């Protein structure tokens, strides 16, 4: 069962929310939709769910066009950030709601609810009302409710972002386990790149309604193709062509065809080699202790450079250092 999105467009009162979206989600794949606030993640998710009609383009599930299929007949599961549980229904009634609508027998519903309550570790909370649960527990119930109907696709819109850090980590792991064991293709929206890297088989990085890059987490991190992705996926140094010409011309040889002079090299800070050297061209201007590593600010050939070194490396402000850069660690990004 795979989902195929072709050339999707959506405007809100003339303002572009989705632009030329092409995406394929394979069976049992976990895809994260990553991007800054307002980039159209929720809009895309709602289009897929059928809660919003796209202006152009098509969405196919296992080859079947969904355009004429209303949301309630798509058989998907959806989880929102919060507020989506039915407040006057107990936890058990919430989870069983989808099955009740489908007219399932009450004994079957009860069995399924019990099974799911175990899955989300809320077995003893069946008779509580959502108002009597913590935020994390409510999200567990929402996930169970979405899973109850054996959805063909699971859609998650920032299901963890309203939770505090510890609960979020815990639920993140559980979500991944459940998705793996059930093998349901899943699309999750998030604006937290750590979360996307932990959970996703593939990350879709969006910006201003456009998909900038799609790929496995390692690829987006190590080989970003645009400045935006390079920036969004973590710390880095963006070295412009102009500067490289004076300071590190040997890196220019690696420039692939098609990257213009406005392009740049993305160099992750952990790939900047530092060696204490009284004759070195770099000078430490500042550093921050981060626990398992140190983040170092350097002055190097007229620009500021960010590096990360093991925590035990000793530096003082003003120390001179030699800087080593391996061309293989560099990724060229478009403007």
């Amino acid at each position: 069962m795979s989902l195929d999105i072709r050339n999707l467009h959506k405007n809100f009162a003339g303002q572009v929310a989705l632009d030329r979206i092409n995406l394929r989600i394979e069976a049992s794949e976990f895809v994260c939709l990553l991007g800054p606030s307002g980039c159209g993640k929720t809009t895309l998710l709602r289009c897929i769910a059928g809660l919003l009609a796209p202006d152009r383009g098509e969405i196919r599930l296992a080859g079947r066009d969904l355009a004429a299929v209303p949301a309630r007949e798509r058989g998907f599961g959806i989880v929102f950030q919060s507020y989506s549980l039915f407040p006057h229904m107990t936890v058990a009634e919430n989870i069983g709601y989808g099955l009740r609508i489908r007219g399932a027998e009450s004994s079957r519903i009860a069995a399924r609810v019990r099974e799911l309550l175990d899955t989300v570790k809320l077995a003893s909370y069946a008779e509580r009302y959502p108002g009597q649960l913590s935020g994390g527990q409510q999200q567990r119930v929402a996930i169970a409710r979405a899973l109850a109907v054996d959805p063909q696709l699971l859609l998650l819109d920032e299901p963890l972002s309203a939770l505090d850090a510890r609960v979020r980590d815990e639920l993140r792991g559980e979500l991944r386990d459940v998705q793996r064991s059930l093998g349901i293709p899943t699309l999750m929206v998030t604006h937290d790149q750590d979360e996307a890297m932990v959970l996703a088989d593939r990350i879709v990085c969006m910006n201003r309604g456009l998909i900038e890059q799609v790929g496995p987490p390692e690829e987006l991190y190590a080989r970003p193709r645009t400045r935006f992705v390079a920036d969004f996926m973590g710390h880095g140094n963006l070295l412009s062509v102009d500067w490289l010409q004076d300071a590190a011309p040997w890196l220019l040889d690696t420039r692939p065809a098609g990257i213009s002079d406005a392009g740049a090299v993305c160099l992750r800070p952990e790939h900047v080699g530092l060696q204490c050297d009284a004759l070195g061209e770099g000078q430490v201007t500042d550093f921050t202790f981060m626990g398992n590593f140190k983040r170092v600010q350097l002055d190097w050939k007229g620009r500021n450079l960010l590096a990360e070194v093991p925590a035990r490396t000793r530096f003082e402000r003003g120390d001179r250092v030699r800087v080593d850069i391996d061309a293989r660690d560099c990724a060229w990004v478009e403007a």
Partner: protein
Amino acid sequence: MSAGFALPASRLPRLASAMDDRWLLNACLWLPLAALLLFFVMPMGFIAWRSFMQEAGGIGLANYAALLDTPGVWRATRNSLAVGASTTLVTLLLGFVFAYGLERTCMPGRRFVSLSLTLPMLAPSLVLGLGLIFILGRNGIVGKVFGFRPEIYGFHGLVIANVLYALPQAVMILRAALRGADARQYDAAEVLGATPWRQFRDITLPGMRYGLLSAAFVVFTITITDFGNAVVIGGDYTVLATEIYNQVSGQMRFGIGAVVGLLLLLPAALSVWIERVAAQRQAGSGADGAQAPVPQPHRLRDGIYAIVCVGLSTLIVAVVAIVVVAGFIRLWPYRLDLTLRHYDITVSGGYASLWTALWVSLLAATLGVALLFLMAFAVRRLTGWPQRLATLLCALPVGVPGLVLGLSYVFAFNQPQLPWGVLYGSAFLLAMCNLMHYYTQGYVTMMTGVRGVPVQLEEAVGVLGGGVLQLLRDVYLPAVRVTLWSVAAFLFMRSMVTLSAVIFLITPMLSMAAVTVMRLDEAGFTAQAAAFSTCIMAVVGSVALLMHVLTTRAAARG
């Protein structure tokens, strides 16, 4: 969303310097608390006491027994229940249509509809009865034009007038209930496969359970304790409100009055209790960050709602407008030339009562704002049993219908031998009575304003060495300025139009405007009654308009 458990209101850190002027803080609590005890708790005590005080002397249940063989009261009770139940049913149905139309459809004319719903609040309730009579009564326009005279005096007229009067309040409660739902609940249900009808049944209706119940009790209470319409359009159809008035003011049977007054507390008390339960239930679902469902256009549905709502709104506007118009007509509906002579009112005390009402309303607004502000401030700053007692007492007045409050004032203050008996027949007492009548609503608004004052600001004053006085002057007063004005306007407007409480307290020397309208109508001077009502509506309407301008300005300034 934060955890669903209701947390106790966080205690504010005590300021170092506040210790020195704690007496000032305590004074802030005890002054309004004393007023509440004297003008609310004590009269309620008196009414309870009087219900046991037998006319033959001694203490006992004779009054309760006497009730059983007072046929007038029984007939009035039956009638009141019939009117109350019918009004409640019709109002809930219409109120639901209005609320749903305003909140969940894209029907055209929404501004007109919500504007028209404010009209009945700006006038004494009996204006609606008056308007109905001008349209459908013996000398109504319908009778003259079509020669068709429906029996409007009595049950039907009462129900219609009460529905029009209670509708805005029902719509307000039901709209709030509809706003409590979240769009994502509907989205989730949709994706789970629920049809629109199922979503209505499984999300919308259950979400409104408490709203509907609370609206039902509010409407029922308003209806069975409303005085004005019963007199104006009730005809021979006696209801509880008028019957009690006759028993107490006419036949001096105070014991019976006290018993019925106590019984009338029941439905109102129930409604208050339901509202509390509902508030607790809603606390769990979290209010901030919720997204109200955004209605999508739907031709057929929007059209149907527009026809019903705009049609009914037009009726409301027409009923009120006809009163204004009739005040300028020489002889409604036979000689339709314009005249101002009905404004030359000399009977029933003339305009004296309008000035009294203005004075009493100003007094109620000023005293009310001062007392409520001190109360809200003290309740927020203090802890301990006096604070808890105050919180509890502030919530009670809303459960006491005006009729019962007025009765209790008769029992408590029409006592020349007691020290507070001197207050009887004074404008001050009328003002306090009106203040207590609307105390809880004012307190809730005030509390909302006071809660908006940032704790950091208070702490800053404390750290800079300021005490209670500085805190009041430099932090609270500026921050709640708009709230103060809106509470004052609310008290003033209600005080101008209310009838059911003050009817027991007026004397030949001291009457209120709404009472005069009723007297004029009783005496057959309907055109003068209309003219007088128009004056009241002009005053109240101007204040409402002024308040609207003031609040929109303040909102624009941020």
